Structures are given as C-alpha cells and as structure tokens.
C-alpha cells in the first residue's frame, strides 16, 4: 500500500514537472482559458450583466483545467507510444492504473496555472476586483476540484489506451463538457435533460464549490464532498475499464501501434 501510494505520488510529481516543461501543455492551460475569459468579458460587458465577470473568470479557470486534462491525458499516452515506453509500462510489475492515474492528475494539476493566469488577466486587463467572500474555503476547494477532474480524465484515458489514434478523441470532449457543466453558461438555460448529465461530471461540482466560496452562495462543502464522492467513483470505474481495455489492447497487439 505504501509502495503504491509512493508510486502514485512520485508519478504526479514527475509528470507535473514534465508537463510544466511542455510548451503545448503550458500554453493550453495558461493562454487558452484567457481566450474564453476574454470573449466572456467582452460578451458580458457588451451585454446586460457586468457583475458576472468574476464568475466568468472562475468558469474560464475550470475550463482550462478540463481542457488540459482531456487533451493532455490523451496526448501523453500517445507520446509514450511514440517514445516506445507504453508497452514497458504495461509490462512492469506495478499495476498500470497506478502509472496512468498520476498522469491524468498531473495534467489537471497544471490547471493551477490557468487559475493564476485567468484571475490575473481579469484583474490586470479588465479591472475585475478579486474579492472572495470565503477565501480560505475557495483555496480549500481547489485541490478536490483538480483531483476529481483529473480522475474524470483517468476514466477517459482508460478507454483511450486501447486505441492507436486515441489522442484525436481528447479534443472531442472539450466543448461538450464546458457546455453542460455550467462553467460559463447557467445550466438553467440548457434543455432540462442536460442537468442530470451535469451531476455526473466533476467540473460541475468543482465550479459550484469555487463559485459558492467566492460569492458565499449555496454550500461549498457539499460541492467539495460531491467532488470527493465522484473521485472515488471515477477511480473504481476507471480501474475496471482500464482492465478491460488493456486486455483488449494486449489481445489485439495495438499497444505499440503509432
């Protein structure tokens, strides 16, 4: 158990450092959310409700975390294929979930860059005051948000590992999750059937936790608890899927295909 925990922790640290030196990952997480934050600022400024600008900042931050998780988790597996180490990692005595899980958590963890960049961008360029009602709770909500989004990426990566061109799937989940989890758009504006789907997705609860802490609305601790519950669910589901898809990849000899 201790060895597994150590492996997971070292994996997170290693991949976090590795991704921090990857221009694409850093750009995706720091600059890409600024694009959407900027568009949201202009749209809400030109529209009717300028008080939602801080909400837009937080929403763009969570968008950045999901973006880097979905795109980079898929891309990292592909990179390991190109480097020829994916087969070795699968063949290693350590369970493969303990190798894959840190990659996706590290991908979402570099989302902290998006938190800093987006909030600073809003403050410096658009003059949005960073006044949080419960700053400590806001800070407390960040780790469970990141971990739960990373674990959602783990579920996705568990399926992707089976396919040679899984990297291409990453982008496909970017907009749909942004749309249905209420990051910039209130879920009430979407068709009613979307809301139950949003409950199953970690960005919904992460966003609620952060915004409830920032504006003292709702109960951020319930949202944090939901992030933790979903984290456990994602870990179990992801591990089960990974077992299945890994077996399929071994049987069809697709692991090393580039």
């Amino acid at each position, binding site marked *: 158990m201790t060895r597994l925990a150590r492996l997971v922790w070292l994996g997170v640290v290693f991949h976090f450092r590795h991704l921090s030196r990857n221009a694409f990952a850093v750009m995706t997480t720091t600059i890409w959310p600024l694009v959407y934050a900027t568009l*949201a600022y*202009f749209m809400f400024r030109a529209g009717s409700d300028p008080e939602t600008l801080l909400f837009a900042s937080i929403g763009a931050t969570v968008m950045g975390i999901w973006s880097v998780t979905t795109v980079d988790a898929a891309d990292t597996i592909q990179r390991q294929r190109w480097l020829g180490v994916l087969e070795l990692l699968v063949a290693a005595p350590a369970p493969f979930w303990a190798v894959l899980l840190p990659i996706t958590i590290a991908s979402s963890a570099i989302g902290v860059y998006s938190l800093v960049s987006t909030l600073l961008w809003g403050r410096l360029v658009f003059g949005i005051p960073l006044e949080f009602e419960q700053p400590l709770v806001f800070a407390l909500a960040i780790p469970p948000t990141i971990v739960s989004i990373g674990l959602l990426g783990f579920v996705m990566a568990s399926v992707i590992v089976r*396919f040679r*061109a899984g990297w291409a799937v990453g982008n496909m989940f*970017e907009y749909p999750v942004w*749309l249905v989890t209420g990051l*910039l758009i209130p879920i009430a504006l979407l068709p009613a059937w979307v809301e139950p789907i949003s409950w199953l997705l970690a960005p919904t609860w992460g966003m609620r936790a952060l915004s409830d802490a920032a504006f003292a609305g709702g109960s951020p601790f319930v949202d944090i608890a939901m992030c933790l519950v979903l984290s456990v669910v994602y870990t179990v589901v992801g591990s089960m899927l990974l077992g299945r898809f890994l077996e399929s990849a071994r049987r069809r000899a697709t692991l090393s295909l580039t």
Partner: protein
Amino acid sequence: MTALRVALLGGLLSFRGLFSWLHPALFVPTLIVPPLFQVLFFAYLGRAAELETDTFYVVGNSIQLAALPGLFAMSHAIAGERRSHTLAHLLASPASRVALFLGRSLPVMAIGILVSLSSFVFGALVLDVELSPGSLPLLVLTMAAAAFSCTALGLAHAAVSLRVRELAVFSNLVFAVLLIFCGVNVPLDDLPGWMSTIAQGLPVTHAVEAGREAVSGATLADVGGLLATELAIGCAYLLLGLALLRYYEHVARRQATLELT
C-alpha cells in the same frame, strides 16, 4: 503536367496520411463534433449575455470554423512529414514547391467548406435558426471564400514549422486570434478600436460579415465587395506563405533542423 500530377496526387496522398493516417471513422467525428459544440457553446453564451441572436453566433462560428482544418491540417502537412521522416526526402526532390504545397492545400480547403457547412446546418437545426433557402448558395460561397483565406493563412504559418518543432501551440494561438478579433462572437463595434483595425487584415472578418448579410437576405451584388476583400486577403497570405516556405526551407537546410523531432 508533372507539376499538376505532383499537386493532385501528392496532395491527395498527403491528405490521406494526415494526422498519422487517422481512420475516417475517427477523422470525420473530430471535424464534426467539436465544431458543432463550439457553435452551441457560443450561442448559449450569447443567450446568457443577452448580446446577439442565435443566428449571429451560428453564422459567425460556422464560418470561422473553416480555420480549423485550414490551420491545423496545413501545419500538420509539414509536421506529419517530419514525424514520418519523409520531410527531408520531400524537400530533396526536384518537384516544384508551389505544386507540392498548393496540392496539399486543395483537400484542406474542401474540408474547410464541409466543416463550415456541417456546423452551420447542425447548429441551425439544433437552435432552430430560420434561413430562407435562397440565401444558402451565397452562404456557401462565403464559406468557400473563408476556407480559401484560412488555408492561405494556414500555409503561411505552416511554413514556420520548417523552423519550429512544436507548431500546435502557434496554431492554437492563431485560431484564438481569429475567434476573438474577427467579430465572430463579439460585434466589431464592441471591440477596442485597435482590435477591429487588426481584424480588417485577417481572414474570416469579411466573410463573417458577408455571411450575416447573406442570411438576412442580401444578394451577391450586395456582398461582392466583402467577398472580394476576403479573397484578396487570402491571396496576400498565399503569396506570403510561398515566400516563407522558400525562406524557411533555406534556413532549415543551412541549420540542419529539417529532421529534428
């Protein structure tokens, strides 16, 4: 004749090999799903901001989405050759560079039009956007103009990949600039003056304006000037792209960076 063969057959083969020989079953959804959701995302964001109508976002985003293949497929046409270790052979060949790279841009332009059209049709159906059947041909023409200018911009920025290893970062930035500056989601009048001035020299801006006029009932004569400007901007980027390709090929040969992955 040889140049035509290089352009057509070479372009077709290169397109087939794009994105690591991605299977059509996966390639097609990547061209349909994210664009459709981009249209829906901004239409709903527009509703939340109470800024413009759904038609504004459906037309603007579907035309801007011509830049998706225009930028990423063009840059990958060179990056993919490098990754497959065929770039040096390609550039060592005596084939005309104009035929090589224009050939690679033809399928990209066709895909650009299809991406624009499919995202418009899906977006209009889902959001119940009304459109008179008569305006569709003119709208497709504006999409074609945008696909041409975006592919030309893609060629210009793909040239940089002869010098830079990881161009995806740059492609994303250029795509973002088009999304913010060109009046796709925020009317040009609501943007700061310097941004709308820059937008006048970018692809997409004039096509989006022409597209919005087309769906509101304008004729070809009404939007002819806008389309001509969009095409002229495309021609300027095309010439710039060919010049940059020539320059960066020379630099990459001199500095032996062609095969760096």
